[in-house]
């Protein structure tokens, strides 16, 4: 039972919720750029939140189903179609052996997610099914997917026709918001920057540079300076850390970001806003706004309540099939 990659797309990878426990050995966490859309895709097909999915970037892949199953697509709108018939977004859809699922260029956002009922049956690597970068090891999880790859999947009981679960597409409005506001907390070296620079940081219309990827997003709009005689002793970093190299042009560490870094961090993006940041397209203006750790925690709990509720709801729907 498998899915066959006909056209690999720009950067298609397998991702679960990330690889934990190996950061002190130099391994990045990996995992989805937009964990919100990723988890919702899993819920739609009745999977656990952490089940591995396909993450598709900018231009999606073309995939042939070698077996009957159920899929759901969330995140960036890549005009998903089956045998050239558009399929709904944010909804479970039955597919049959021989069907061709095609994803095109993203019309909104950057990262799309394709979940498969039952999940991807690839052997985990260090306890996770997230793709590792720079691993020097031959495995389906150590590189982006390529033409001809067969992705093993688990069997699922499939009834054709209408599938039970869908999500109101408004849940994905964060991807299409124009001029979004992204919240950040003070970074570990926030005090290194003077008042004027801190103000500038919030006033600038920032844009994602095209020199951005799963490791880091360069953001353009202005330079942030700090005393050049200050040298940071390398310390741990996290997804969303806003590092400022000597050039003054910030880099936000993303899902494949290195686990330690030697550049001062002016800020740390609030976890709930990471999906919004990940989905920003190069050139699209956005604003950075400071929040407190308490704000960020409350938003996180709130999001967690929503995801738990969605999971219960979709589980219930699948049970009734």
């Amino acid at each position, binding site marked *: 039972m498998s899915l066959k990659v006909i056209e690999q797309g720009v950067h298609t990878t397998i991702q679960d919720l990330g690889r934990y426990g190996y*950061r002190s050995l130099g391994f990045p966490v990996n995992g989805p750029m937009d964990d919100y859309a990723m988890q919702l895709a899993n819920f739609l097909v009745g999977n656990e939140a952490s089940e591995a999915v396909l993450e598709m970037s900018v231009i999606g892949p073309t995939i042939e189903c070698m077996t009957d199953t159920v899929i759901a697509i969330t995140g960036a709108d890549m005009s998903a179609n089956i045998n050239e018939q558009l399929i709904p977004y944010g909804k479970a859809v039955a597919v049959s052996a021989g069907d061709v699922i095609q994803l095109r260029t993203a019309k909104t956002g950057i990262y799309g997610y394709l979940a498969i009922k039952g999940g991807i049956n690839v052997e985990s690597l260090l306890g996770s099914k997230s793709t590792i970068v720079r691993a020097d090891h031959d*495995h389906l999880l150590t590189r982006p997917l390529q033409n001809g790859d067969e992705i093993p999947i688990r069997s699922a009981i499939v009834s054709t026709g209408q599938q039970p679960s869908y999500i109101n597409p408004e849940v994905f409005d964060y991807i299409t918001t124009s001029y979004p506001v992204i919240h950040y907390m003070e970074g570990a070296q926030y005090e290194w920057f003077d008042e004027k620079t801190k103000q500038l940081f919030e006033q600038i219309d920032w844009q994602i540079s095209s020199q951005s990827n799963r490791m880091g997003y360069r953001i353009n709009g202005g330079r942030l300076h700090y005393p050049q005689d200050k040298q940071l002793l*390398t*310390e741990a970093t996290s997804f969303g850390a806003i590092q400022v190299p000597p050039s003054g042009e910030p880099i936000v560490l993303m899902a494949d970001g290195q*686990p330690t870094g030697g550049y001062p961090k002016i800020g740390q993006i609030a976890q709930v806003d990471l999906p919004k940041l990940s989905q920003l397209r190069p050139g699209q203006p956005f604003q950075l706004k400071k929040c407190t*750790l308490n704000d960020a925690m409350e938003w*996180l709990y709130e999001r967690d309540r929503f995801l738990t509720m969605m999971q219960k709801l979709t589980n219930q729907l699948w049970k009734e099939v």
Partner: protein
Amino acid sequence: MQTRYVTENAVMFTVADELSQQAQETLLQLHHQLAEEKPDWLVESVIGYTTLTVYFYPLRIVHDQVANYIQSFNIQSNRTNNQHTLHRIPVCYHPSVALDIDEVARKHQLSMEQVIARHTSVTYTVSFLGFSPGFPFLSGLSDELATPRKETPRREVPKGSVGIAGQQTGIYPSTSPGGWQIIGRIPISLLHFHRLQPTLFQPGDQVQFYPISKQTYESYRRKEKHS
């Protein structure tokens, strides 16, 4: 010990203002004790030069409790004779793989032999691993070899390259972009996905280098490929 709440799920503890062996021992003790006690809220902890960052599940514990938990550890900072694994690592310093050894030698007005002698005469300590899977940051480099990073990083530094960046030396376990000055290459692999420990080095380990010829390097590489 200073604490800083760096994200929704991490607290960073700073144990010293600057690099020292004592700071390193304290960090290792904290890291190991935490790994042993394995509280159910713990995700993992990551060592830096003077910091330990503790990642946790935010729905199970709050930052203040994490801070109190770590601060209650009884750390004997003068206990420096812990047993640390010593690795002896063969390095080929031949200019065909030591891409910047000429440049480093010229900068310090040393001969190539002197660079090699100074690089192999020290026992280094793995301060921590970072940058990429299995990449060791080794402290103990001779001041005479300290060299800033390259102004323009290379797009591809070959796997096994031994580099210098400021006061640090390190080894690239896989081919990747990088800005360190490359003074040698090792024929052995630092990543082992099917072993219990996927990386050769652990924080706190000790490392000595010894020089090998290009010929020996090639024959070790062939052996490594077959194993």
